[in-house]
């Protein structure tokens, strides 16, 4: 308790610098979550499948990126780092999309019309396979990509925006805009939305919904691939680190409500900031708990509101 009071005191005494830094870094982190969550929300909304393996896909993307960047450094040591890091994103996107497609053909396709609980378990199984598989193939060592970017300091070094996070967040936003545009304006995107709204109607109109599902899942893979390469140069990748991202994406979707793209972005940014504040005030050991508890609390609040309308959450 004393600890919390002291932290609060610190927060107010050194305002605004601390607040600006916590908020800025939270937003940058939130942008990465937004990307990962967007993929999860897409699959959830269109296919009614919760992909627990989302985090493992992200980590896989990180590894692809890591090996690509390292290989390129060895082949061409004098080229600029940044070039390869940015190029590694489409590489990771394609690789993870292909992997996701294999997963789709082997497993997801068979559980499309089953209830969501089956999807939760099946993708959890995939997560287990991927975790230990990556552990065997890429070794248990923590991996990072060192982007060697400068940090931008403001207000006498009290507010610092790391270049890598800035790059990660901006690339994440670019990718998100591209994907949202794709879903909104392309023919493929129209098919996705039609399928999400009404499967039967979409089928009658001649849309190959199964193909739409396959494409959606692969698109999610591509998103995870991109997010993974960002994670590799902003954070650390490790075969068993994926659940962190899955659970956060989960909390964000619940917070935003399914099928709410704008909500996902705001909820993700908000979560980044919220997480930093709860870590700062309560202590970092509370950070994860405070994120996960959002899920039941959000649901309870929504259930409570709906009950007043004599409805229930289903």
């Amino acid at each position: 308790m004393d600890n919390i009071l002291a932290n609060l005191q610190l927060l107010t005494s050194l305002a605004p610098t601390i607040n600006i830094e916590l908020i800025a870094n939270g937003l940058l982190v939130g942008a990465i979550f937004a990307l990962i969550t967007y993929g999860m929300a897409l699959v959830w909304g269109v296919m009614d499948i919760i992909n627990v393996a989302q985090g493992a896909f992200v980590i896989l993307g990180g590894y692809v990126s890591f090996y690509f960047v390292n290989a390129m450094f060895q082949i061409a040591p004098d080229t600029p780092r940044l070039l390869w890091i940015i190029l590694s994103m489409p590489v990771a996107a394609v690789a993870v999309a292909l992997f996701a497609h294999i997963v789709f053909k082997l497993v997801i396709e068979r559980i499309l019309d089953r209830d969501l609980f089956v999807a939760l378990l099946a993708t959890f199984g995939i997560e287990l396979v991927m975790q230990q598989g990556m552990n065997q193939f890429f070794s248990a060592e923590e991996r990072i990509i060192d982007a060697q970017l400068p940090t931008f300091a403001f207000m006498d070094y009290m507010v610092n925006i790391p270049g890598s996070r800035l790059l990660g967040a901006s690339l994440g936003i670019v990718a998100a805009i591209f994907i949202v545009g794709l879903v909104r304006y392309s023919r493929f995107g129209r098919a996705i939305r039609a399928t999400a709204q009404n499967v039967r109607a979409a089928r009658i109109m001649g849309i190959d919904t199964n193909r739409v599902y396959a494409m959606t899942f692969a698109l999610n893979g591509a998103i995870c691939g991109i997010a993974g390469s960002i994670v590799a140069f902003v954070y650390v990748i490790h075969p068993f680190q994926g659940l962190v991202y899955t659970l956060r994406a989960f909390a964000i979707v619940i917070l935003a409500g399914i099928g709410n793209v704008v909500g996902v972005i705001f909820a993700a940014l908000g979560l980044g900031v919220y997480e930093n504040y709860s870590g700062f005030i309560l202590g970092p050991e509370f950070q994860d708990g405070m994120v996960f508890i959002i899920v039941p609390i959000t649901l309870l609040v929504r259930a409570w509101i709906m009950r007043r309308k004599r409805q229930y959450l289903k």
Partner: protein
Amino acid sequence: MAQARTSQWIASLAFLAIAIAAPFVLPNNMSQLVDLMVFILIALSWDMLGGQMGYNSFGNILFFGIGMYLVASTQVWMGGYSLAEYNSAKGGNLESFVVTAPVYVTSLIIGLAAAAVLNYFVGLFVGSQLLQTRGHYFAVGTLGLGVAAGEFAGTMDVLGGGSGMNFLQPPEGVNLTMLLYWLGLGTVMLFIAFLIWLHRTRFGFVMNAIRDNEDKAEAMGLPTNKVKSVSWAVAAVFTAIAGGLYGAGKNFIDPTEVAFSLPTIGVWMLLMPLMGGKGTLWGPILGAVLFQLFKEFFWTYLFGWQRVALGLLIVIIVVFFPDGVMGGINALRERLFGKAKSAGESGEAA
């Protein structure tokens, strides 16, 4: 109906006979047998909601963890020691925290009873709130609760925080694994008898009615909300006892890796009913046995790849055998002898 009931009792007696013989046949596998009893308890409790009522919970691990911490704490407290002092030693100085054999055994049993009672109310409360959400929202909400619980337990210094908490060392003369096995078996038999009885009561029918169509059940004026919460509370009781037994057997509680470990025990407890056949009495039990066999086999012979194998097993079960072994048997029986009469037992959640 009466005939089905008799066959249930016969099956129970057969199970009891095998379970009594097991320690003599497999004296070197005692701790695996204790785990098996724990698994049967958590599988049957999960099935009360997941199988009988169609509410798939990921949050039963909450009761498991609370039960474990409660039993450990009760033992320390009844041994005459301060919990804060005991845990500030971080599992050290165990020589100065000793209890006599009678105190150890009684405190274990009282701890289990306390865990059972307390978790009944926890289940009732959490259930009355969370069970208002339905379908996958319930699954997702309980999942969040289960993971969060472990994180918060890790911040409580009085429970040892992230350093975890040791159980008291069993004193000389206490054969802990044997004790846990018989306690576990006793609870399992109690639970089986309770379930056989419950499924013939009006309460049991309401449970199945909720599974088949909750809206209609509610419209018929059945007390669905009460039945849902009370069922979960009963499931919580047996899950908590299982948690206490498991923790005492493992001797060491880590908040996120042992007590509230959603990715392991928390998922296994719903995998087992699925393997055996959910919504049946013997399905979860069969599932627990099968799961334990598979798990031990994987861990022994697939060093480094065991989780891959487990993951594949999960995928194969949910994709290809969603009705489990009992479902397969029923399907076979229906093909051979025509449709079974009692739909309540073999019915699958819609």
